[in-house]
């Protein structure tokens, strides 16, 4: 859907520069080697980067940092924290206002999905202290970022919600969609004009071009998106898992870079004096060997193939059952980071084909 306002890129850039003085503004920045990371920026110039592929780590790092202290604890009398002495425990939440600039629609979708999981039944305060202080300024992709992205197959190359502002390139201007009150307030500070009939006509043409450009991305997965939960759900004994499990390094990279992976491990660290310490959470991944290990050393998924399947099962069947959606955006970070080229669309297609589906 076309945005409501048109603003000049120059005016928008000035607004970002002003924002950068009072809060963190982060955007994808080149790391060389055709790789990108969200880093602090001072203006909106990185929005114009050509050939941008999804950042190494997704924006989840701002809401669920790779490592974070959840609880600080100490005894009152220098006694050891594990001695049975009374321990004072305090929550710790580090959060600051932050503008995320140039967030691609795939990541916007992932953030919306993570939000859902992190407020499900119990709202995670640490996550939302940061999430609620964040302003999301999205950017529409005019074409797929590379030949691996399957965002269009996952319906993530367009979003209707989950942003404060969403920008679409309009030559010297941006067309801006407003997704929240906060976005509305930001836009208020800018000189803008309403979209015209001319804009609408141009928009239709642009959408036609986009559709054409995204067609290969949409065709990456043969079965329908809504068929994936059953496809993976009923695939326990499929050879697809054996073949890919043999190949899989079990290194967990795909989990860590996934924008909809949000599992963590919790560990305590103590000071050398033993009288104080921190309880930390760190990113974890279900493809790692000890993820499902319980006390007493029983491992519920001790084979790589079972863990690989579990990852896809969780992203399709589980999240579909719970939230009515597949939690995968087709950003293909998992593929780009995978050293043995395990590609989700190929696994879906292979499952589909072996069930007698058309290829």
């Amino acid at each position: 859907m076309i945005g409501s306002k048109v603003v000049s890129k120059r005016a928008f850039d000035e607004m970002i520069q002003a924002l950068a003085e009072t809060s963190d503004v982060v955007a994808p920045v080149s790391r060389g080697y055709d790789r990108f990371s969200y880093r602090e920026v001072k203006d909106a110039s990185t929005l114009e980067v050509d050939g941008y592929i999804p950042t190494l780590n997704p924006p989840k790092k701002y809401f669920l940092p790779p490592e974070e202290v959840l609880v600080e604890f100490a005894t009152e009398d220098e006694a050891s924290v594990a001695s049975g002495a009374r321990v004072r425990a305090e929550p710790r939440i580090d959060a600051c206002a932050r503008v995320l600039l140039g967030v691609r629609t795939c990541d916007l979708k992932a953030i919306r999905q993570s939000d859902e999981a992190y407020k499900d039944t119990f709202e995670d305060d640490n996550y939302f202290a940061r999430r609620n202080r964040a302003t999301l300024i999205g950017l529409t992709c005019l074409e797929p970022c590379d030949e691996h992205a399957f965002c269009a197959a996952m319906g993530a190359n367009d979003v209707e919600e989950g942003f404060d502002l969403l920008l679409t390139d309009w030559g010297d201007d941006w067309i801006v969609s407003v997704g929240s009150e906060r976005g509305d307030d930001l836009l208020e500070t800018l000189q803008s004009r309403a979209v015209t009939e001319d804009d609408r006509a141009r928009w239709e043409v642009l959408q036609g071009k986009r559709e054409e450009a995204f067609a290969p991305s949409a065709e990456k997965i043969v079965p329908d998106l809504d068929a994936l939960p059953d496809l993976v759900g009923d695939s326990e004994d499929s050879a697809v898992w054996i073949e890919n499990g043999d190949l899989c390094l079990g290194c967990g990279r795909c989990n860590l870079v996934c924008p909809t992976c949000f599992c963590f491990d919790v560990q305590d660290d103590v000071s050398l004096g033993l009288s104080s310490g921190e309880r930390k959470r760190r990113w974890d991944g279900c493809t790692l060997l000890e993820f499902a290990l319980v006390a007493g050393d029983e491992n519920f998924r001790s084979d790589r193939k079972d863990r690989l399947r579990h990852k896809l099962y969780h992203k399709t069947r589980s999240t579909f059952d719970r939230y009515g959606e597949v939690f995968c955006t087709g950003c293909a970070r998992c593929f780009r980071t995978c050293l043995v080229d395990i590609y989700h669309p190929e696994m879906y297609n292979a499952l589909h084909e072996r069930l007698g589906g058309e290829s």
Partner: protein
Amino acid sequence: MNVAKESSALYVPEPAQIIDKEAMTEEETWYHLRLESERSLDHDPGQFVGVSVFGVGEAPISVTSPPSMKDGFELCIRHVGNVTDILRGLDIGDWVGIRGPFGRGFDLEPAKGKDILFVAGGLGLVPLRSVIKTALENRSDFRRVILFYGTRSPDTLLYEDEIAQWDADPDVEFHLTVDMTDDTWKHNVGVVTTLFPRVDFDPKDTVAYICGPDIMFRFVVQQTTRLGIPDENTFLSLERRMKCGVGKCGHCQEGSVYVCREGPCFSYAEVKAF
């Protein structure tokens, strides 16, 4: 059902003091704890708490006391890991951290006006004891109460005093078995499923609550299914790697559920759908 307490405290344990403790077997110790805030735990039978030894970690432990117990609550802990090993060394008056209660417990509602079958295997008696006691406190709500308890050997029996009471109670059909023993044993010998032929069931009007190791479930559920106790009237408690307790960290995912949040107690109909 209990919902989140103060959300900023989601991951912050509150202090609780050991009021009493007693070794139950070589591997298990019983604890009576009281929260410093004197807040009643207000749990459902079958729910669990996170027990913290700071600097070491947190372990998920089922509450073994019934909700009717207002002065603190009881845990029975098997010493098999980092946290639980250190708990063994703590004494009366010492402090631990507590989060919770978490998860979905056993619901006794479906059993009202019907027969109840409890099946406990080994440490499975710990969470089940909370339900058993609750059922017995409201004895008139139910018809027959049948209780099977199986354990490895006589020296691994938990709650021996209470077992004697159940055994003597004319309102409880109590059957005890051990896998192996010597000649002095006056109860059954064999796995817990060998108790089934000893009882005449009214399967259509029986609700089963089962707790024990995974391998036991499989065999017990074969029995309940064979008898014709409906899957939706068969409840069990699953043990997975519960860590955060609030459906976030992911370690306890099983099928489409987070065991810590949607469980640990499920109907067999639900488990089959995983």
